């Protein structure tokens, strides 16, 4: 057994409690499917992340649609979603979002209750790291997933550090598996 876990950034070490790495993409999908109030948080690097047929925003819209997730667009990203006519997308600064997610009294963007699973993608690595740290420490009951391609220790689960093509195929597989949502 080797202790070597490939980190997302050399000094990313957080603490004793750190993210589990998904054994396979289908687990992500089924986790999302099982969630009652999942939220997908898309960060402002999303347009720079190029996929086969578009960018991470397109993937996000697909995931949102197929998994019936509310989407939070951070930074100034909302415009992109508007352009692509995505539904159920809210704009919120990343810091605000973190702050609200740790508040158990917050009832979500639609006022219908707190989220039970929050999935992150497309954010600046270290900023996501920190928001996840805030949540790990102060929202102990919130489950978090990082879909980024660099290991995020502060999430509950993470994809881990993978290269671009591996990453893309993981995301695709997640999307495919979401289809089957009953």
């Amino acid at each position, binding site marked *: 057994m080797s202790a070597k876990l490939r980190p997302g*950034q*050399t000094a990313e070490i957080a603490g004793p409690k750190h993210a589990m790495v998904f054994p396979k993409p289908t687990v992500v999908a089924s986790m999302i499917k099982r969630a009652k109030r999942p939220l997908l948080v898309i960060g402002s690097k999303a347009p720079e992340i190029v996929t086969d047929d578009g960018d991470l925003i397109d993937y996000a819209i697909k995931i949102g649609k197929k998994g019936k997730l509310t989407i939070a667009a951070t930074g100034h990203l909302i415009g992109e979603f508007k352009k692509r006519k995505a539904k159920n997308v809210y704009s919120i600064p990343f*810091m605000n979002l973190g702050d609200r997610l*740790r*508040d158990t009294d917050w009832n979500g963007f639609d006022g219908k209750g707190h989220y039970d699973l929050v999935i992150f993608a497309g954010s600046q690595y270290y900023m996501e790291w920190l928001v996840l*740290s805030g949540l*790990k*420490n102060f929202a102990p009951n919130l489950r978090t997933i990082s879909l980024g391609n*660099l290991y995020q220790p502060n999430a509950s689960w993470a994809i881990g550090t993978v290269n671009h093509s591996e990453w893309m195929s993981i995301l695709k597989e997640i999307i495919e598996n979401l289809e089957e949502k009953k």
Partner: protein
Amino acid sequence: MRHIISIQLFNYGRRQRRTLSKKDLNIKIDELESSLGTIKGLEIQIGRITDEEWEEPMGPTPFPSVGTFRDWDKKLLNRYKPFYMPLCDLCCLCTYGKCDLTGDKKGACGIDQKAQQSRIVLLACCIGASTHTAHARHMLNHLLEEFGRDYLLDVALNTNVEAPHIRLVCGYKPKTIGDLEEALDYVETQLVQLTAAAHTGQEGDNLDFESKAFHAGMLDHVAMEIADISQISTLGFPKGVSEAPLAQMGFGSIDTKKAVVMCIGHNVLPSVDIIDYLMEHDLFDKVEIGGLCCTAHDNTRYDNRAKILGPISWQLRYVRSGIPDLVVIDEQCIRLDIVEEAEKIGAPVIATSEKSMMGLPDRTHDDPDAIVADLVSGRQKGVVILEPRKVGEVVVKTAMAVSPKRKEFKEPSKEKLFENMEKCRGCLECVMACPNNLPIMDAVKACAEGDLSLLSELQPLCVGCGRCESACPEDLSIISYMYAASADQCKDECFQVRVGSGAITDVEIREVGRGIVFGEIPGILALVGCANYPKGGGEVAKIAEEFLKRRFIVLATGCSAMDLATTLDEEGQNLYEQYPGVFDAGGLVNVGSCVSNSHITGATIKIANIFAKRPLRANYEEIADYVYNRVGAVGIAWGAMSQKAASIAAGCWRLGIPVIVGPHGSKYRRNLLGRKDKEEDWITLDARTGDDMYIGPVPEHLFYAAETIEEAIVMTAKLSMRPNDTTKGRAVKLSHYIDLSKKYYGTMPDDLELFVRGESDLPFTMKVELLEYLKKKGWEEGKIGMPDPTLLDRMIRRKK
């Protein structure tokens, strides 16, 4: 030798040090004999001889102690609750540890995670404030020695309120540079109390830690004020002039045929001696003096023939260019491997501060020529010289002697700079070490195959931290590669920077006060702090331009003031050249170095005092309440990274001025965020009646890390709103907010209903559209009040 005596008065009725307000006395004794001996030239001042001019009665809180403003702080902290984001889940501050504080765990001392995070914030603020205070002490000691205690403070033209922070916090009015000492003593005493509070087993409550951090911030602004007004008064810096002269900045500003001296840091004293030496010996045509960071600003404030090399992030790049013949370091913002790096290019290092001696031998008391000889011969790679007035000769002589011998280093060939590149083994260590995960490996590999473009694209994204090199198992000189790949462009770059103008004058305050307080001037935007962000240059200038066009007053200091000079319009003009250098709507003022930040907060204080006639003396809470509720000032420290930045920001928070930082600012471990969705958080008192009133979330946040520059821009517009805005003012601010949202978010804001108090707040041209929007949102006219806003019970004029 003259002995001059400063006197502290202790008023036994309080625990705090105090000055007498009117019982002042000045005794001069030319010669006095006593049983103990003879004293000549003795001067005794009891109290402040200057006080006679200050009729204002003492306010409630002279020389406040750690807990004095705790209630005020908690009012703010209750509205802007800290959202903690631990950068580490552990505490390693004592040998009981490491302790795991994750979640609800406690350390061996009983501390919990929130208290720990806020303790680190306090510690950072203490270190930051100590840094400016230590700088101020060093500066003041030297200036007192050189100019005498009686040297009159002369800070700004036509200005009565020379030291708003000292007046506000300490409750006295300094007249001479000697008078500054009492405030400095006070700051030091308080800082030691605060540092002590961070000790294991002292404070335990996170909000008490936060309040203490605010206290450190307040003290920091006093210290910065002392540092800057003492140097402005004595060294002939611009005194609040409009349209200050221009200085040159960039690689292209340096004539590499001259001997090049590179000064790094924040303390202008050694540089002053160098410039004086150059003047006295008429050597400006033989020697270039260029600076990095604040020393650069202050050098140009002293003499605008000095050059600005650039902000902190260019430090390593400049050294790698081989251009500097000699490096002078004073204090702060110095790369700690500078001696090693300078050695690689054959440039000796002169260290000039006890705070930063870098292991070099102390030659303060040696003969200058002997020192020069040792440096020129390379027997010593650097020396310490602690007497500022001894630096000039050594530096200039050494630089001139070293320069001709450094030919091989001064223009390194591309081959040399690109050395070893092909050894890259593709391990990705560089990328993982890079704070921004920049695609370094790809760029190096491409370059090795002859394609320089990727590397030169990296250059503007790189903050020059050197972590990639340090991580590289092949010890590749990645920063040199980046420099080499874009050297041809950047070598000719020369930008104009307006010289730091110093404090805002009373006249300027009087002229703009009304516009700011009633919202007709939409806001004051301060762009401050370091340039440690990717795309240095473009980003900050983009913000500045956006708000200059919208007739905000835009102020800049430190590396930000440099960085925004680097963006040119089609005519090759930068913002300093396009916009007037005046403290007025649409004006862009470089206030100066980092210690000049005190003038920005000082200006908001002066608005309350001079424009609104609020009593200033030892009256912190009322003034802060005024600034918070009425002065639409917003600070952006896009590249803030240091402990100093933390304490400067904390000084803004206590005054109620919101601060936005860049994304890595989230690493400050917490933000102070308002919750616009919670109406109960936005209840304010109406000073006229004492009624509670909902005012909407203005300003929404107190400390806030933005993810993108676009987000920061839109948020700035939003944070410029204040409960006191007139309808006309609010309409202007709303129109900017809407306009910028549309521009950068591609959509209307989704929270407009929280800022429109009544129809008359609506920008005229958008009225119809907006009313429709508001209707959908269920907006009600008048739900949001327009009180005479205050958070302080005692400001209520008529109690119910």
